[in-house]
Every structure is written in structure tokens, then in C-alpha cells.
């Protein structure tokens, strides 16, 4: 039958195209993920030949794990601060650098380029460069300028350490969010803005009630990515503070890493990782839901 053989040929072709990607993906993501679920139900130490299933015991232990619970708090603190600051700053910079008041397009691109450069460097390097800046340069600078009272021990206390990590994170990623906002700003039809001005909307009012709603999709994307980035942060903390001082910057990802690879409690670590996974998925779901309802249709 002519139709049937076409269907079969199409299906074969479908799988020929899709299977390679699906196979590597299954092998190195789906299977490990499933493995993660399974491990979270054991007390594996990474070495022994057999898996000892202990059911949901790991999850119950998590409820008493103060270091983990604190890491959740720290991650939340870090993420909220990061998301708010980086989005506000990058939006302001986007407004600034997209402004018609800067006449030369070349210069505009140059400024944006400079701000974006840190995004192309490894986070380990970013962390290190700021480690250096905070410990050595800052001290020197402040003392030589006679502002000795501003000398802080960035890594000696919890607030300083979190601030240091935040600054490094923001420096590294501001350019990225700025690019998204600039793109969003550039899609706004200038006629709309003109019409709004004619109707009486000026300056700040125009920005809040006209411009911002028009770049909602950019805001959504940036919020989405910055929230997930905040939750997943690891590299910078790993290099800069190793979670210190005194677990002040111990984020969830770091706690999981330590639990699994330092304490060698792979089963327990996996359970924590699954909790993180669930948190991120739930967060994503609510974000999508919340913002889907607020999009301005053009």
C-alpha cells in the first residue's frame, strides 16, 4: 500500500535524524538523572559494590541538616540580591547606552563591548581577579587615598564575603542582561513612544507605563535566567571563598559538592541534589505562569 510505505519511510527517517542526539542525551543526561533519583534512596559512599536502599531516610535527614538548610537560606539571599541588583543595573545601563543622546553608534558599541567582556571569561578567573582586587588592591587604594576608615575585610565577615561574591557575579554577567534589554528597547516602535508623548506621558512616567511594559519579554527572560543562575551558582563561590567564612557563602550547589565529593556521602548528596532540582523546576513553573499572564500582546 502506497500510503503505508511512505509512513514507514517517514518514521524511519524521523528516527535517523533524531536518534543520535537522543542517544547521547539519554546516555549522559537522562540516565545519570535517573541514577541520581535512585542514589538518593541509598546510602552509597561512592565505593562499595552494592547499593543499600534506605528509602526516604536521606530526605528526612535533610530536614535536620542545619548546614544544608542554611545553604538554602544563603542561596536565597544571594539569588534575590543578585536578581534585583543585576536587573536594575543592567536595565539602567541599557537605557543609558541605547540613549539617543550618545550620537556615535560606534562608541555605543564600544561601551557595550567593554561591559560585556567579563562575560567571555571563565568564572574561575573572574573569581580570582576579584579576590585579588578585594584583598590587595582595595586595601592599598583606600589607604593611599587616605580613606583608611573604608578599609573592610571583605572575606573576614559574612556580609563582606556575600558582597564580594555578588560584585563578582554582577560584574561578570551585567553585560549579558544589558544586551537583552538593549535588544528589547530597540524593538520598540518609536512611533508608539511619540504617540505616548503627544498624549502627555513624559520622562519617568513614560518609562514606567509605556517603555517597561513593551519590553516585558526581555524582563521575563532576564529574570528567568538570573534567578536560575543565582540558584545554580557554584564556580565563583568555589574559587573565592570555598563557602566561607564559616559557611557564610555556602550555597546549595557547594553544599552538595562537599557532601558528595568531600564527605563521600553520594546517596545523601544525591538526595540534596534532587531537592535542588525540584526547587528549580517549581520556581521555573511559577515564573512562567506568572509572567505568561502579564505579557503585553503586540
Amino acid at each position, binding site marked *: 500500500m502506497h500510503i503505508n510505505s511512505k509512513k514507514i519511510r517517514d518514521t524511519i*527517517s*524521523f528516527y*535517523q*535524524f*533524531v536518534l*543520535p*542526539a537522543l542517544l*547521547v542525551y539519554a546516555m*549522559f*543526561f537522562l540516565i*545519570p*538523572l535517573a*541514577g*541520581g533519583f535512585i*542514589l538518593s534512596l541509598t546510602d552509597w559512599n*561512592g565505593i562499595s559494590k552494592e547499593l543499600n536502599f534506605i528509602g526516604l531516610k536521606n530526605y528526612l535527614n535533610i530536614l535536620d541538616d542545619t548546614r544544608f538548610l542554611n545553604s538554602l537560606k544563603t542561596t536565597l539571599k544571594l539569588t534575590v540580591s543578585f536578581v534585583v541588583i543585576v536587573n536594575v543595573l543592567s536595565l539602567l545601563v541599557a537605557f*543609558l547606552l541605547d*540613549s539617543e543622546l*550618545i550620537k556615535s553608534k560606534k562608541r555605543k*558599541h564600544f*561601551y557595550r*563591548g*567593554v*561591559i*560585556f*567582556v567579563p*562575560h*567571555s*571569561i*571563565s*568564572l574561575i*578567573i573572574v573569581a580570582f*581577579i*576579584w579576590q*585579588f*582586587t578585594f584583598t590587595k*588592591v582595595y586595601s*592599598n*587604594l583606600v589607604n593611599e587615598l587616605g580613606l583608611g576608615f573604608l578599609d573592610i575585610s571583605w572575606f573576614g565577615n559574612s556580609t563582606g564575603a556575600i558582597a564580594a561574591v555578588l560584585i563578582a557575579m554582577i*560584574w561578570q554577567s551585567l553585560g549579558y542582561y544589558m*544586551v*537583552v534589554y538593549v*535588544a*528589547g528597547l530597540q*524593538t520598540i516602535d518609536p512611533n508608539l513612544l511619540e504617540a505616548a508623548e503627544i498624549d502627555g506621558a513624559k520622562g519617568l512616567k513614560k518609562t514606567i507605563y509605556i517603555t517597561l511594559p513593551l519590553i516585558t*519579554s*526581555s524582563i521575563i527572560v532576564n529574570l528567568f535566567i538570573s534567578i*536560575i543562575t543565582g540558584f*545554580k551558582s557554584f564556580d565563583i563561590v568555589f*574559587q573565592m571563598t570555598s563557602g566561607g567564612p564559616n559557611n557564610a557563602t555556602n550555597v546549595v*550547589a557547594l553544599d552538595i559538592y562537599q557532601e558528595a565529593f568531600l564527605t563521600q556521602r*553520594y546517596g545523601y*548528596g*544525591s538526595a540534596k*541534589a*534532587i531537592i535542588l*532540582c525540584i526547587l*528549580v*523546576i517549581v520556581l521555573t513553573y511559577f515564573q512562567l505562569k506568572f509572567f505568561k499572564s502579564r505579557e503585553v500582546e*503586540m
Partner: protein
Amino acid sequence: MVKNRLSSLLVEAVAVLICLLFVIPFVFAVINSFKTYPEMMESFIRLPNRLNFENYVKAWTVMKGLRPFINSIIITVFSIIGIVLFSSMAAYKLSRTKDRKSWVIYLIFVFALVVPFHCYMIPLVKLTASLKLTKSYIGIVLIYWGICMPYAIFLQHGFVKSIPYDIEESAVIDGCTPFKTFFFIVFPLMKPIVSTLIVIDVIMIWNDFLLPMLIIFMDRSLRTVPLVQYNLYGEYNNEWNTALAAMVLAVVPCVIFFIFMQKYIVRGITSGSVKG
């Protein structure tokens, strides 16, 4: 008129100020990388007496010269080849096929976008070790194929929809096999999205730290640039001048790459964020 000119000047002054702020860490890093140890200990913020390249020579030797760069290049290049090849094929077919299995498989891929690496890194490490894939480039390249697939497919899936179907139709009528149709007709049309995908993934894979740390850190000869940097910072904890020289060496290729690929990077970031 004058008010406009003043505002322009002000705005640009602020822009320049912000750029200066951004550049400060680099400035001090470079300054100190040219100092001798005593010079540096005297002051971290003054300019060096002369351009001292000793630190760079030392850093180069400690890093084992070109080795980490070669490792990073090999891993990045082979990863990208696999990712682009398989993801473009899959994204194309998934986008063109509009039945339930296609939609389900697409969701299975996209699902990974919300799963943090930490959730599956433990079993992944053990799996790779048991498959004996940790002693060579193969293991980590395969892993990158697997875990970079979702984003690559996500990016290209939408793009394929914008390619008109008539061209493929006429190719099929002319007797082209599905593979020929894809590789000779559709794929060349996907150049914009593929080039941005390549640039994004190059940056991500080149700068990746945790995965290589878990898989190939043990083998010194396989270490990528970020791993070598991490190790070096630990070893040269107080010899900031040497460590910073090493850092500059590592940063230079990244900055050069960025300068040349700026257009694609910007396009890649904005492609998913702007409607219409």
C-alpha cells in the same frame, strides 16, 4: 540645543565612567603582572618600574606552555562538531514533523534546560568512570554532546520554523533523499542560528570548570585552561604577580575571541529573548 549637547556630554561621561569601573580589575591585574615580587609587596596600585616579563615566562612554564590551550581547543572543537551535527539534524526533524511523538521528544529535550548540573553530576561521574572514558578526550566530549544537546535543539527548533517549506518540497519532488535535502538545502539556510550556537557553546565549553574538574582533573596532561588556572591560583597563592600573569595569558584568547565574534554573541543572546 545647548541643553541637548550638555545632556549628551553628561550621558557619555557616565558611560565612560561605567566602562572605567568595569576595566579597573583588569588594569590592576595587568599592572601587577609586570612587577617583581618586592615591587608588588611595596604597593599593589603603583605602576611597575619597568615591564617585567619574568612573571609571564614563569607562568608559561608552570602552566606547561601551550598544553592547556591545546586541550581546551581539542575538547571544544570536537564537542562543537558533534553538538552542531546531531542537534541540527534532530531539531530540523522535530520541527518539521508535527505529530505527538515529535512533540513529546522535543519536551524531553527541553526539560533538561531547567535541571541544574548538580542533580546528575554524581552518577554522571561514576558512569563515565565505569565506562573507562576518563583517561581521554572522548569521555568529556561525549558528555558535552549529551548535555549541550537540549539548548542547541531548543535554539534551532524555532529557527527551522522560519525556513519556508517549499524549497524542501521541490527537493523531495526532484527525488532528493531526506539526508540530502537536509544537508545540502536546509542546513546551509540555518547558518545564522548555527553560527550563534557555535559561538555560545564555544564560550561555555571553553570556560567550563566543574565538569572537567570532576572528569579529567586527575590527568594533568588533559587539563583545560580553567583547571590549570584553578590549580595555579592555589599553588601561587601569595605570588600574585605570577598568578596574575598566568591569568592574563588565559584571558587574552577569550577577549580576542569575543572581539571577533561580538556580532554573533549578541545575536545569540537576543535571538531567544525578543518576540517576533
